[in-house]
């Protein structure tokens, strides 16, 4: 049988050693009423060729980024993944290991985690980072919970321009906590910072930059505002934008989180990706998640261990900073490899994305799809269309994909460094034809 190496003779010998007559007796501690009296009705027992045929049939009929042209955005993007990234995270010693509990035989994971943390710190300008969380949305929720742990206040301000998934996840996490969420309204595509009245007992303000629409927020003003009110500034950012956009450190963010997919991870129909989490040294003991730290071994050699484990659930149980244990390390490792390969090119990358997306936005406007709002943007932007869904469907029939659809008359268009002039000109032509 697949993956079970035992021969019949061995099974017999092992049962004898245990003092049992048959395998049924291995389950004699399960009450008869709870025992399954039949086989599971699960189709299977397939060989590898059957598996390949089954999965290939499905895969080959989906317009993926290799057969279609994606201008899709909304938090997940068709970015360039260097070939070396995939090869490295497929190394068996990386992907078949568990969490590095035995540090002496896990230095590969631990050093890479230390390096990942360092890279995230350099990118965001923050002082410390953890070893990853599940995704960008849950990272925001964890950031908010941390802010409340830090300052004990129970009101949270969230811009309505952050990704709806973030707001929704935050509201879900709120079910278990006693705090209030106040939203800052959107005005002309960006957060309206003018309507804040009662800023008492505000733990933190959550802003996203570029925001859900791809528009750039006034992060300086937001930061000033919340700091005046005595709260923490939580910034959710696209890490790939930080080669050109102001770093969170520059506008005084206290916690920087975000979705890491753009850093060398595939789209994977939405997951697995990872969330990154960086903050100030002062808050390190309030942080959720794993962290690697440098130390020495008994011979004085430099090595790495999981550190500050006393924050974590397996030590602190109900008093832990979070319940997280398995995070999304392999995806964070991919980003560490990505940043090692492309880190020096991030300014160039940011610039070309700006250049491409600006080109497309201007051209689309010229053929009748103006920007929904006149704001500065990075990588993606919302356009107006008479019937957004109809446009999306019609383009899909030509193998071109835009979206997601924001409302009946608005849809997002994202332009990564994989989209060439040729792709864009074709899209423009197709869309012009749809008017």
């Amino acid at each position, binding site marked *: 049988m697949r993956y079970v190496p035992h021969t019949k003779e061995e099974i017999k010998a092992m049962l004898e050693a245990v003092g049992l007559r048959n395998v049924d007796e291995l389950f004699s501690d399960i009450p008869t009423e709870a025992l399954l009296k039949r086989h599971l009705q699960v189709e299977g027992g397939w060989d590898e060729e059957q598996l390949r045929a089954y999965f290939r049939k499905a895969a080959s009929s989906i317009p993926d980024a290799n057969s279609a042209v994606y201008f899709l955005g909304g938090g997940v993007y068709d970015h360039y993944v260097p070939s070396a990234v995939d090869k490295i995270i497929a190394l068996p010693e990386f992907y078949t290991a568990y969490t590095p509990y035995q540090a002496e035989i896990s230095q590969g994971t631990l050093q890479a985690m230390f390096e990942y943390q360092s890279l995230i710190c350099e990118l965001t300008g923050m002082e410390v980072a953890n070893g990853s969380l599940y*995704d960008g949305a849950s990272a925001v929720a964890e950031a908010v919970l941390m802010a409340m742990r830090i300052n004990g206040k129970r009101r949270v301000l969230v811009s309505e321009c952050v990704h709806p998934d973030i707001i929704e996840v935050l509201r879900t996490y709120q079910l278990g906590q006693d705090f209030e969420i106040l939203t800052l309204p959107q005005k002309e595509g960006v957060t309206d910072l003018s309507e804040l009245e009662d800023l008492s007992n505000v733990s933190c303000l959550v802003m996203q930059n570029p925001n859900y629409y791809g528009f750039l927020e006034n992060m300086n003003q937001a930061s000033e505002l919340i700091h005046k009110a005595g709260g923490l500034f939580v910034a959710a950012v696209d890490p790939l934008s930080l080669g050109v956009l102001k770093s969170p450190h520059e506008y005084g963010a206290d916690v920087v989180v975000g979705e890491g997919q753009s850093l060398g991870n595939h789209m994977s129909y939405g997951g697995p990706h990872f969330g990154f989490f960086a903050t100030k040294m002062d808050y390190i003991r309030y942080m959720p998640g794993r962290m690697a730290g440098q130390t020495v071994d008994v011979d004085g050699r430099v090595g790495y261990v999981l550190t500050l484990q006393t924050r974590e659930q397996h030590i602190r149980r109900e008093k832990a900073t979070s319940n997280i244990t398995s995070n999304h390390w392999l995806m964070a490792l991919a980003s560490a490899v990505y940043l090692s390969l492309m880190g020096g090119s991030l300014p160039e990358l940011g610039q070309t994305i700006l250049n491409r997306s600006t080109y497309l936005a201007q051209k689309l406007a010229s053929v009748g799809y103006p920007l929904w709002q006149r704001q500065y943007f990075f990588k993606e932007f919302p356009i107006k269309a008479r019937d957004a869904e109809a446009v999306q469907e019609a383009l899909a029939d030509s193998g071109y994909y835009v979206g997601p659809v924001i409302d009946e008359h608005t849809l997002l268009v994202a332009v990564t460094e994989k989209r060439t002039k040729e792709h864009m000109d074709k899209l423009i032509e197709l869309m012009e034809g749809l008017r």
Partner: protein
Amino acid sequence: MLKELHKMGRRGPQVPVSGLEDRPISEILPKEFLREEPLSMPELSEVEVVRHFVNLSNLNYGVDNGFYPLGSCTMKYNPKINEEVAAWFQDIHPALPENRVQPLLELLYTLQQDLLEITGMDAITLQPAAGAHGELTSLLMAKAYFKDHGLLEKDTVIIPDSAHGTNPASATMAGFKVVTVKSDEEGLVDLEQLKALVNDHTAVFMLTNPNTLGKFEKNILGIAQLIHGVGGLMYCDGANLNGMLGWARPGDMGFDFVHLNLHKTFSTPHGGGGPGSGPVAVKKALEPFLPKPVLVKAEDEDGDGSYHWDYDRPRSIGKVRSNFGNILVALKALAYIKSLGGAGLREVGTMAVLNANYMRVAMEDTLPTAYPGLCKHEYVATAEEVKKRYGVKAQDIAKRLLDKGFHAPTMYFPLIVKEALMIEPTETETKENLDAFVQAIKEIVEEAATNPDVVLSAPHDTPVRRLDEVKANKELKVRW
């Protein structure tokens, strides 16, 4: 170290060309949006990056290197075919219109149906990213359920003292009070104490079954009755499902919800710390509260199915993460399930339990099991006696095992066993490997008696030797 390989101006792969003329960034964005602080990234060539990480990988130990009996982690073999077929889906965007991804949705729906059959449950979400995330999701659903039923007094979660730390941590995050119930002398939930603890405040009883001692909670039916009697919910931490896979189902023994660890029972690799996947399967009563969207099948008049993400779930707790779940992990689990089928899954359960019991018995003379008798997928040995006699602790034995080419068992867990070594062989290990491990344990205990220093100062043959965790905690050097 990466940083030390840095050389300003060196480059890895090129940024893809656009075909457009370059425009200076100042023409595109006002200065107020632009970075002024220099960006300090290591600048490296591709070969240096590849070597760095290839050589790092060789300092690691994975299932592909050898036996990994890390208790409660179910470190079984990760079949290569699963990696191969899942990768075919890696370049799909989650915002693709539903009508363009039907074949993928069908795969995910099939996985859902298979997991429901495996657990004996009625409805499921693939959304949670990991086991602990599944726990949190479940407890938030419980919260919503009680609120929906107007049972606002339901504020307490009962958890055995042998439970994973995630259980109380998740309960706290979900806003419940945590009450601990002790284990009895058999390593099972102390029924008498449980009865005393259960009352109208009891919201959820979180039970890992088989538990972390590898014991099947044989009083499970009575426990369920007790909890249900006060209107509480029975939650199964499914981390140890491998110990009864194909033999018994949470849904048949009174559980109302259960999370699965696809990266344990269903062989998806752990990746050195994730990504996992923690689907939650529930009974009908909890279905309305599942995170949205829920993947549903609509059948047309011809019986042909189409698949939809259902967002119209007024009682849903909402999303617990962005998008739909760890899809690639789910596909690997589906490949695993399809490679085995019903009979194969049961054989997995059988052999996981046989392997554990065989080792347990073989080790009994050397490191006795804390709670003797039949176990399921794992058991917990205690080095208490060895420590008393020779001063050699469980940790020392664990470290010495590294010298002998094995990954160590889980140490010092569960907390109720002194000098605990929690051993889970899984079904994919050969008898020879089990014998070799038992032999290694015997040698180490022999060394403890005759030459304790060699054990106390272990490991000796690893890339680094025993590391100073206190220094790491004190000096907190967590970045370059």
